[in-house]
């Protein structure tokens, strides 16, 4: 294991800003794994820390195939993590909206550029990332409907779902999109949580990364003989369940649960009087893929996304 500084900025009153990477193996740049870009992505940090631990063990046991280099960057944004702020401390910009970066540009453009220069040549890129809304997901691989990544390779993670996302204009400045522009097969990996640690889904994500790399012959890892088939879903095919009222959000189901049409999913409760203002029902038979988790919710908010039965 080789620990190296990927990018550094001098701090005025704070310690210098450092993006630290961990390299395993040697040879061609095979796989790069990137963790947090935002200060609240604690689960993503935890997942990467578990991967660093696992790769250290694999390397010591000689289980990384010859000629393959793996780089793990647990956090691209320790400054924001340490002050519990989602975006960049001074100007509130999002590093994951700055790729491919610009070395003469503003601070987060420079960070994106400094990081991207180190990771752009890898054959495969895996990013642990989060959704803009507070909520829980079924663990899944997300990939864009545009670009270089293939569904066939996404299936090699053997996660329960592969979600294909339609590219929006703002996606063009993300790491995932730009990786693909520079011929890296890029996959975003979503675990259940973001702001709290869920060891179970973190363990699942570590296992899925091992399965992916094992199937590509990059590591030697025995994970059982039966290959799990991921279900491929297009994000626009998911069924959203929206609130009509704002109020206290009381969930009646769990993420991953199978629900039949008509199953009560959640109540929206009057914040002062405790009465139920609205009950949300499952509009289809299907599985709860995403669920809002904040105790309060706004009207017109998609608090559930269901994967309907085919």
């Amino acid at each position, binding site marked *: 294991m080789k620990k190296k500084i990927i990018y550094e900025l001098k701090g*005025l009153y704070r310690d210098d800003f450092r993006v630290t990477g961990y390299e395993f193996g040697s040879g061609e740049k095979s796989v790069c794994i990137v963790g947090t870009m935002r200060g609240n992505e604690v689960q993503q940090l935890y997942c990467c820390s578990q991967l660093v631990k696992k790769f250290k063990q694999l390397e010591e046991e000689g289980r990384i195939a010859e000629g393959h280099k793996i780089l793990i960057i647990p956090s691209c944004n320790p400054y924001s993590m340490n002050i519990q702020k989602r975006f960049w401390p001074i*100007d*509130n910009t999002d590093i994951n909206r700055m790729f491919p970066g610009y070395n003469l540009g503003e601070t987060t453009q420079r960070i994106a550029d400094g990081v991207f220069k180190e990771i752009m040549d890898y054959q495969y890129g895996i990013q642990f990332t989060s959704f803009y809304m507070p909520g829980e997901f079924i663990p899944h691989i997300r990939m864009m409907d545009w670009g270089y990544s293939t569904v066939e390779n996404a299936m090699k993670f053997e996660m329960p779902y592969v979600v294909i996302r339609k590219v929006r204009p703002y996606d063009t400045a993300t790491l995932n999109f730009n990786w693909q522009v520079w011929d890296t097969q890029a996959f975003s990996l979503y675990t259940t949580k973001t702001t709290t640690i869920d060891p179970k889904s973190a363990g699942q994500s570590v296992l899925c990364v091992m399965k992916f790399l094992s199937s590509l012959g990059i590591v030697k890892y025995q994970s059982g003989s039966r290959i799990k088939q991921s279900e491929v879903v297009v994000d626009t095919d998911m069924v959203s369940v929206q609130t009509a009222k704002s109020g206290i959000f009381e969930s009646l189901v769990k993420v991953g649960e199978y629900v039949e049409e008509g199953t009560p999913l959640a109540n929206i409760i009057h914040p002062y009087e405790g009465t139920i203002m609205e009950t949300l029902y499952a509009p289809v038979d299907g599985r709860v893929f995403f669920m809002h988790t904040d105790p309060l919710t706004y009207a*017109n908010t998609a608090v559930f996304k269901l994967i309907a039965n085919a």
Partner: protein
Amino acid sequence: MIKTVTSVGLPVDETLTIKKRRIMPKEHKEGMKRISIVTGIHGDELEGQYVCFELARRIEESIEHLKGIVDIYPAMNPLGIDSITRGIPAFDLDLNRLFPGNMEGDMTEFLAAGMVKDVSGSDLVIDIHASNIYLTEIPQIRINELHDEELVPFAKEANVDFVWVHGASTVLESTFAYSLNSTGTPCLVVEMGVGMRITKEYGDQLTDGIMNLMGKLGIWDGETKESRKPIISRNPDDVSYLNASTSGVFVQKVKHWEELKEGDIIGSIVDPLSGKVLDEVKSPVDGILFTIREYPIVDEGSLMGRLLRKEAYKA
């Protein structure tokens, strides 16, 4: 007449309402032209607040000269304005990256769609921004090169100092102005002053420009002031960027909109702890400073200013 543009209930005993004020002549005529003044998409940009107030005041003072419709939208992001937040509080989303919105979408998309629907069809829209809290801007209009032909003739009449026709970018397709311009409603984006403050001088200058545009559109037949002739830049090489070479405290030494020669000192980046000057910031070109850093703390890379090269305005 105060109207509701769109609204949504919030969780605890509050309704979020986007409001506008419509000012019309006493006698309503068919086919009257409409100008819409929009501001507050970013909650920390307040320069447009004064313009909305001052414009309404001048119109009312001589209401007999009003021949069309003036819609004033002073607060597209009321929660942001109330909490000194650039984006939409709670969602941490930039409203100006959510357009054209979606009536069937989540709360933020629903609100964005309501705004576009209400403003669409105006003969001209002025979307007033105030840079951000870090930079002061000379009154200027920014135009996507895709809409150069339609918008520059309007921009010339807006009494701003500078018109910046910039390159197209996919990311900017989610802005309010792009949504309107790409669907046939002309929208000028004004940047002036600095976040969290009102610069009355700039507000008066732009209000003169809006009155002038109203005159040209046939919405106002009263007296207007002739617009100053703006510098128009279409060449990306016209603009030179000043980014901090190191983290520190930026101390400005020149004034905004000052002509500089290559090598002139613009300011210093200092370290108050060690007492050292970390860098002297020099002008990289002969030109005029149209953006200057207001917030003194800089990280390496922070934007400290923008210069318009001399060739762009002395040609």
